[in-house]
């Protein structure tokens, strides 16, 4: 049901087309945070949806420009608080690339394991919250049950449950212990039947399928136009994943698939994420099998880090897409410019064009399928 013009009816043909502005948010149950979408509506049809950002802007980039790299490191876990591991990975990666620090292989493997665990926990939160948007309350509690196990595991090694700061320039804060490794194996073994159960109970539910299939199709061209990445572009049939396209860390040592679907609708985005969880489990399993011994911290990392003057980029595949850190250094201990390329802002930008003419409920289903984390948009 897509309309581009205000709906005209032959009966009330002479009546003026009345539209109204619906202020969705910044306090609204469907926006999961302080996103505000100014919607021009014709009845229940969305004519124009203009996202208004900035309600949780914390000047993350500016903060990066007036504190040392080590001081700024904990901030990166607070940009996308659901995928903190991936985000710190992006930042330490950029600094390591600039200062040419060689990270020991054990640290890289543990980074992969923890990043992938973080990705699963992030996707689980999305899954629960997305179904909440669709009016299914129960899956949220199941998702959080699984996520709890990840949080417990990561808490054991990092001490934090949400905004981890586990990676250091040159390695990790501390080595993992035996209980983490057995716990991670156990989690992989437990999670597979759970994913199967979710498929049977939720993915194949007839109401859910009706609500998602064919809703909010996003073409690859639209993704390119707005720079959408992550599950959004993969659901449009483009197999773009930073882990494969520009392998970082030790990702090229693992076998895993990039799930893509050509439909581009909300169901495709849903399925991409569900499949990604299975692929992350695969990566974790392989990394646990191959985990080398040795130190977890590079030798001779200077206490006060001064990057050589230059322009450095490092991209990681975060849970929501490509997260890139760009550091411009003038040789001082504080960066001259920090640019954070976050996936959610690009993924949100296409909403205005893609939601045109959709029904409110469908538009919100599509908004949920984009998996937005608001601090990641505003940062």
């Amino acid at each position, binding site marked *: 049901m897509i309309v581009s013009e205000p709906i005209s009816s032959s009966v009330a043909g002479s009546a003026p087309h009345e539209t109204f502005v619906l202020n969705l948010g910044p306090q609204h149950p469907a926006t999961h945070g302080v996103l505000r979408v100014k919607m021009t509506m014709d009845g229940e049809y969305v004519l124009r949806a203009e996202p208004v950002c900035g309600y949780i802007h914390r000047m993350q980039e500016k903060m990066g420009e007036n504190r040392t790299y080590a001081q700024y490191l904990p901030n990166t876990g607070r940009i996308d608080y659901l995928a903190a591991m991936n985000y710190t990975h992006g930042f330490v990666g950029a600094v390591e690339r600039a200062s040419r620090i060689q990270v020991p292989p054990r640290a890289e493997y543990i980074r992969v394991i923890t990043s992938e665990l973080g990705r699963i926990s992030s996707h689980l939160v999305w899954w629960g919250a997305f179904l*909440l948007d669709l009016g299914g309350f129960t899956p949220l509690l199941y998702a959080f049950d699984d996520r709890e196990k990840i949080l417990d595991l990561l808490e054991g090694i990092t001490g934090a449950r949400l905004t981890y700061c586990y990676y250091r320039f040159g390695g990790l804060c501390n080595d993992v212990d035996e209980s983490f490794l057995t716990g991670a194996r156990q989690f992989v073994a437990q999670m597979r039947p759970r994913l199967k159960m979710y498929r049977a109970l939720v993915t194949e539910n007839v109401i859910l399928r009706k609500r998602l299939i064919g809703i909010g199709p996003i073409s690859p061209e639209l993704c390119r136009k707005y720079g959408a990445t992550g599950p959004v572009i993969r659901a449009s049939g483009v197999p773009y994943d930073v882990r494969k396209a520009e392998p970082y860390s030790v990702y090229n040592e693992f076998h895993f698939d990039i799930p893509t679907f050509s439909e581009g609708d909300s169901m495709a985005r849903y399925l991409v994420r569900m499949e990604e969880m299975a692929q992350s489990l695969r990566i974790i399993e392989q990394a646990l099998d191959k985990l080398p011994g040795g130190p977890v911290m590079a030798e001779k990392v200077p206490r006060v880090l001064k990057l050589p003057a230059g322009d450095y980029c490092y991209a990681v595949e975060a849970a929501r897409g490509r997260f890139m850190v760009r550091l411009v250094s003038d040789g001082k201990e504080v960066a001259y410019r920090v640019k954070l390329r976050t996936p959610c802002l690009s993924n949100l930008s296409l909403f205005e064009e893609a939601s045109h003419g959709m029904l409110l*409920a469908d538009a919100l289903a599509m908004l949920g399928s984009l998996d937005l984390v608001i601090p990641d948009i505003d940062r």
Partner: protein
Amino acid sequence: MNALFAKTFAFLDTEPYRLVIWVVAIVSFVALNAAYLVWVERKGAARFQRRPGPTEVGPAGLLQPVADGLKLMSKQLIVPAGADSMLFRAAPLLVMAPVLMSLAVVPFGRGVTALDLNASLLIVFALGPINLMVVMVGGWASRNKYAVMSAARVVSQNVAYEIPMLLVVTTMAMVTGTLDLNQIVQQQSGGFWHWNLFRVWVNPLMPVTFLIFYICMLAETNRAPFDLAEAESELVAGAYTEYGEMGFGVFFMAEYANIVLGCSLATVLFLGGWQSPFGVMPGLVWFLVKLYFLIFSVVWIRWTFPRTQFYGLLNLSWKILIPLSLFTLILSAGMIKILRALS
């Protein structure tokens, strides 16, 4: 002793006393149900979600509804600027009335009916839809965009689901040959195979008819997966967005009261009312057992399924339920004719 008892209290069966007793009984039945179904829903939801639910207030959280009620009553009543204050205040008052009136004709047990009318089925369906109209009035009077959208949804949902429901009820009236709920129950005496649900010789699609009735009941009571009027991820709280304090509480209670009414009707029309499933000991207890089983299933569905889209809901009604219920109506009309001709 019994005779003395009967003699002493015979006056209770005379008009003013009887009326007072029934008014008190029905109001307290509805109020208790509405309050404790909230508890049942919260506990039920918790169990489906593998958590304990309310546990703090009273044993097993049993005093939670009281605490909720006290909290709601202690809130300030706010009539939003620009709202139609008279309608805004009147809507919570009106929303309970149709349910209370409808329950007067429902036979809870043998002779346990406040008002024994011979057109009781008609009364229930004449009064029932008023409830949704009141929700519409409340939404409209709020002058909130979400509430107005919800009010518009309520009307088209009401129109869409009233039709198949009435077609089903017409089928039942034809099958049973009466509009008297008491007689409908009496016809179903003697074991569960006599229940209307299993009267497949008159209408081979009787279980389907029951299903249509059940779905329509869910839609009429605004329950998930058809709770489009208060779809919180789209319309915040729908028609109730601007309501706070006990005004919201009354809307909330009315929802449960309507579930009680809808499930009572399903019990009476299809599941033999107060008749026992084994033909022994018919009575109020059986009615309540069936009623609460249906209510439990309503809770179960709510916490299992996601919400439909609005056009999905209308499609279901206009494209599936209405043709199907028309078909069962014509089918049972034909079957009745054939059975008459045979006998």
